[in-house]
Every structure is written in structure tokens, then in C-alpha cells.
């Protein structure tokens, strides 16, 4: 326990510098704005804001990206509440009761409870994160290549089995991502693979270019259909952005019980904010004495998923920081950006660079407070941004995406990859091939292959090594179990 507090104190030293506090404010505000815009979520936010982190030291870069991430979580529901259009998938549930509250003239309390619940969810999530990271990171330090491969295998399998959608299409997405990860010179033998004679591919495909392509350009293309959308916003009727005693009485319990649930879901790979929010909504509706009020402006129907969503984003940071394994699209983008800066999150981050690991954790605690301050008094001016038409926002996002691409290698040659990835991402979305598993596989592919090969060399060619090592065997059993669960669940749904 004492170690945790001394680590946190070390983290506070990093987080409490003026530069880092400034970037938490800037990142959190930009994240709130991007999260708020219909159709754009945290992954797009982090992807297009990557260039501002270049030139920063790794701690500040990670602190800024985290601020963008949870800023987007705070902002995601603004559009749901005000105009019934979710900022991203995890804000869909906020439309259910948030918009009816606005129609009843209670937009002020809705915006307030959304910020308060996000704050409570985020803070509880952070507390879990603080107490969990060190033990997990310490355990992971003992992992050899076999354990690491099985863990990566489980993470990839879980990404498709725990999320919704077709298992086979998820598997195909993973295979495509892994294929892309093998292009270029093989680090272990120097052999050039899958470049088909193109010398520019020898260094491999820059995964950040693919990420910007599928998370920024594809999202812009998807929005081309609705470019003339202009949302009617009546900000005069918002009223006071605060909640009454009665509202608090109705919401404090739902916020407290859904935060741990959201956190747990966030830790699991593949289960993002959308699943957390839907589960929390369903749980509260079941527990409520007035389930008939849900969908008609019940404030707890908004508070519970909001708390759950922010706790979920804290949970998603656990595998990223402690194992170096992103469990969601947004954390995958963050991992990619960090690898560009020469930092590899994982258990060694806590031993080699504790100031970065704990600095980020401390900054998230701080950022939560800053964001609730930004989101309560500034709620009314912030929602005015929803008046900016989509047809103006999209070109700006496209421009930022391409400028970000330039900074990857200080070259505009990657524009080709980004633009093509954008089109392919759009076609995949039409074919309903999920993109997050592809991106995760692309990022984790190199490590998976290296650990697989090292394990096989260590065992003199025997694949049984993965079952002989107990921890590795546990991960494989978990992978099989989630697969069986997913197959059974889908069969049940089909029946």
C-alpha cells in the first residue's frame, strides 16, 4: 500500500508541472470537442491529434493522449443529450433518456449529471487502476515468450469473441491485420518478406498511417452521406447546468454501482464503452422501481451509463499500461503513437520509467477534476459547437489527418497509404468487416510472431511449450472459453 502512495507521489511530481497541466487542459478540451461532434469518437480524436504530441517528451505525449481520450468520453454524450445524435457508439445509450430530458426542458440537469457521472465513474475507475496496475505489471514481468504469445493470442481472440458481430469476419480482419504486420524485413533473419519488389515497403507499413486512414479518413468518408446535416439546437432552454437534491438522490447509487462494472468491461479486450453503457442501462432498468420511466427522461438512465463509460475508459488503460496490449481501437491508436516516440508500454514501463507510468496515472486523476470543471460551467458555450455544420467540420478533420500523416516521417509519401487505407476502410465497413481487430492485429502482429518463434526455438520445435507453461496454458484455455461462449451466444441469438 505504501509503495502505491509513493509511486503516486512520484507520478504527481511529473503530472503537476505547468506544461503537463496545460496539456491536460488542451487535450481534454480538444477531446471534449471532438467527442461531441456526431460520428467522431475518441479513436479519431487521438488519431488526428497525434501530431501535437510529436516533439513532446513521452510522459507529456501520453498524458496529452489520455486527456484527449477521456475528454472525448466526457464530450461524447453532449450531442446525444442536445440533438439526439450520439457523438460515438458509447454515447448511443445517452440518447435514450438524455434527449427526452432536453425535450422536457431539463437539458441543464442532463448536461450536469452527464459531467458529474463521468467524473464519478472516472475517479472510481482511476482508483481501481491505481491498485491494479502494479500487481499486474509485476506478474507480467515474469512472462517468457510462451506466456506472452498466449496472452497476445487471447487478446486477439477476445477482441472478436467479446464484441458483437460476425466471428468469421472478425477472424478475417485479424488475419488481414497480421498479414500487414509481416510486410518488410524480418527482424530475426533479415529476410525481405511480402514487399513484392517494392523497396519502399522494406521497412514495413507504417501502422500509424493505416490507423489515421481507417480512423480519420474512413470516418470522414462515412459522413459524406450526411454532409448537409444541420442540427437544431435551442440553447436558450438549457437552463441552469446543475442538478437538484432529488436528482442526486436518484442517481448516486446507480453511479456508484455501475462504475466498477464499466471498469471491468474496459479491462477486457474487445469490450468497449458501447457494451459497458448498454449493460449499465439494462442493469439500472432492471433494478429500478420505475422501469417504465426509462426512455422517457429518467435521470438515472443517463447517469448510470455515463459513469460506466468513463470507468470503462480507465479499465481500458490497464492492459495497455501493464501489458502493452491495447484492448480497444483508441488504446491501439495510443500504443501506435507511443511506439513512434520510442516508448513501449508494458510491465517494464513501471520499472524502467515509473515517472512516465505513474505520471500518466496521476495526470488522469487530475484531468478528471479539470474536465468536470470545464464541462460544468462551460457546458453551454461548448454545445454551441454543435451548430458548426458537418460540411465544414469534415474538411478540417481531413486536413488535420493529412498533416498528422506528414509528421509521422516528415514526409508526404505516406499520404498514399493513408488515402488508400481510408477507401479500403470504407469498403470494409460496407462489407461489415470490423476495423478494430484489424488495427489491433497490425500493431500486435510483430510481437506475436517474435514470441511465437522464440518459444518454438526454446522448445526445440515443440509447440507443446504453450501448454506446458501453466500461465500460457491458462491464457489458451481462456481463449478457447471465450470462443466457445461467443459461438454459443450467437447460436442462441440465431435460434
Amino acid at each position: 500500500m505504501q509503495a502505491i502512495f509513493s509511486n503516486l507521489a512520484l507520478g504527481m511530481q511529473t503530472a503537476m508541472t505547468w506544461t503537463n497541466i496545460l496539456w491536460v487542459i488542451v487535450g481534454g478540451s480538444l477531446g471534449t470537442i471532438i467527442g461531441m461532434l456526431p460520428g467522431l469518437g475518441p479513436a479519431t480524436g487521438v488519431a488526428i491529434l497525434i501530431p501535437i504530441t510529436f516533439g513532446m517528451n513521452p510522459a507529456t505525449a501520453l498524458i496529452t493522449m489520455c486527456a484527449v481520450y477521456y475528454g472525448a468520453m466526457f464530450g461524447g454524450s453532449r450531442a446525444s443529450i442536445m440533438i439526439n445524435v450520439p457523438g460515438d457508439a458509447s454515447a448511443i445509450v445517452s440518447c435514450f433518456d438524455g434527449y427526452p430530458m432536453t425535450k422536457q426542458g431539463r437539458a441543464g440537469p442532463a448536461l450536469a449529471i452527464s459531467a458529474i457521472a463521468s467524473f464519478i465513474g472516472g475517479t472510481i475507475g482511476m482508483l481501481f487502476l491505481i491498485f491494479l496496475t502494479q500487481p499486474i505489471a509485476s506478474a507480467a514481468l515474469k512472462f517468457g515468450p510462451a506466456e506472452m504469445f498466449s496472452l497476445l493470442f487471447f487478446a486477439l481472440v477476445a477482441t472478436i469473441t467479446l464484441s458483437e458481430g460476425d466471428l468469421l469476419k472478425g477472424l478475417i480482419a485479424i488475419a488481414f491485420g497480421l498479414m500487414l504486420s509481416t510486410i518488410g524485413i524480418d527482424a530475426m533473419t533479415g529476410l525481405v518478406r511480402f514487399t513484392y519488389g517494392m523497396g519502399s515497403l522494406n521497412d514495413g507499413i507504417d501502422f500509424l498511417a493505416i490507423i489515421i486512414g481507417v480512423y480519420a479518413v474512413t470516418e470522414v468518408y462515412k459522413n459524406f452521406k450526411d454532409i448537409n446535416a444541420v442540427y437544431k439546437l435551442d440553447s436558450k432552454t438549457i437552463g441552469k447546468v446543475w442538478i437538484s437534491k432529488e436528482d442526486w438522490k436518484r442517481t448516486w447509487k446507480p453511479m456508484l454501482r455501475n462504475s466498477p462494472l464499466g471498469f471491468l468491461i474496459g479491462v477486457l479486450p474487445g469490450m468497449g464503452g458501447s457494451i459497458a453503457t448498454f449493460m449499465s442501462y439494462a442493469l439500472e432498468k432492471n433494478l429500478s422501481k420505475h422501469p417504465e420511466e426509462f426512455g422517457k427522461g429518467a435521470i438515472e438512465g443517463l447517469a448510470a451509463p455515463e459513469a460506466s463509460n468513463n470507468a470503462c475508459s480507465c479499465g481500458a488503460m490497464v492492459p495497455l499500461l501493464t501489458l502493452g496490449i491495447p484492448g480497444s481501437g483508441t488504446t491501439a491508436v495510443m500504443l501506435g503513437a507511443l511506439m513512434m516516440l520510442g516508448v513501449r508500454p508494458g510491465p517494464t514501463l513501471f520499472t524502467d520509467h515509473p515517472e512516465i507510468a505513474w505520471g500518466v496515472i496521476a495526470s488522469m486523476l487530475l484531468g478528471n477534476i479539470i474536465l468536470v470543471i470545464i464541462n460544468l460551467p462551460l457546458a453551454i458555450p461548448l454545445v454551441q459547437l454543435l451548430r458548426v455544420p458537418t460540411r465544414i467540420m469534415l474538411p478540417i478533420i481531413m486536413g488535420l489527418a493529412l498533416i498528422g500523416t506528414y509528421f509521422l516521417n516528415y514526409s508526404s509519401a505516406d499520404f498514399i497509404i493513408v488515402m488508400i487505407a481510408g477507401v479500403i476502410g470504407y469498403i470494409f465497413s460496407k462489407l461489415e468487416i470490423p476495423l478494430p481487430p484489424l488495427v489491433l492485429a497490425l500493431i500486435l502482429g510483430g510481437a506475436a510472431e517474435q514470441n511465437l518463434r522464440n518459444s518454438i526455438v526454446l522448445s526445440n520445435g515443440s509447440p507443446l511449450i504453450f501448454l506446458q507453461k501453466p500461465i500460457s496454458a491458462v491464457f489458451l484455455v481462456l481463449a478457447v472459453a471465450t470462443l466457445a461462449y461467443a459461438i454459443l451466444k450467437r447460436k442462441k441469438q440465431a435460434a
Partner: protein
Amino acid sequence: MNLMTGIIAIVIGGIYLVTAMLLPQMTMGDRLGPKLFPSIIGVVAIVAGAVLAFRERNPEKRSKKTDFGFVKHKSVWIKILLTTIVGIAYGLVMDSLGFLIPTTLFMLFITTLINKGRVVQNLIIAIAFAVLTYGVFAVALKLSLPRGFLEQMLPF
């Protein structure tokens, strides 16, 4: 839809697997290494694609037809195509023309494509975007951006 996805997976997986098989065998060290992982991936893609396509034989389980909307959303596809081409061209001219001019032109093109008929508004957005991003990245954050003749004339 699933039939098409399955065929795409089989074709790409097939090409990939054949390429993996043709990789030279290493004579020492990690002999199977460079081929092992790609071979597994290729097989996974082909098998997943085949099962997906095979499932379409059952009319009850058949997925809905892929709706790319080439006809219904023709204008969307034209916009995507044009944006892609101009985005690539933007990258190609950036090194020689610098940042400000190509960025303004790119933004002007894309705003004109999306925000039709508002010439002055589009011009303001395009110029403001180029100047502001240059100010933030090149001047404030001191990140290097391509310098053409216009940038050479600037004091920063």
C-alpha cells in the same frame, strides 16, 4: 455480402500463402521461422473465408446483399474518389511547393466539394486552416514543415 467477403479472404489469403511458401528456406538458425507465422495466417484467412462463403449456400442463413450504393449514393462515391486522388496529389506536390500553397489549395478543393456554392466561406476556411496549422505546428511547436518559395519569404 458474406460471399464477397469470403472470396476476398480466400484470394488475398491464397496469394499471401503462396508468397510465404516461396520464401527461401533458411539454412541456419531459426530455419522455419520466417515462414511459420505467415503460413498460419494464410491458412486462417483461407479457411475463414471458405467457411463464410460456404455458409451462404444455406438460403436461411444467407446474408443480405452488399449495398455499396454505387447508384443510390453515386455522388458520395464520386466525392470519395476525388478526395482520394486529390489527397494523394497534395502529398506529391508538398515537397516542392511547400506547405501553405498546397494546403490552401487542398482545403479549397475539399470545401468546394462538400460545402458547395459558398465560395467566400470556403476561401476563408482554406486560408485560415493553412495559416493556423502552420502557425501551430511550424511556429509554436517548432515542427518542421516543407518550405516552398512562400515559406522562404517568411521570417519564421
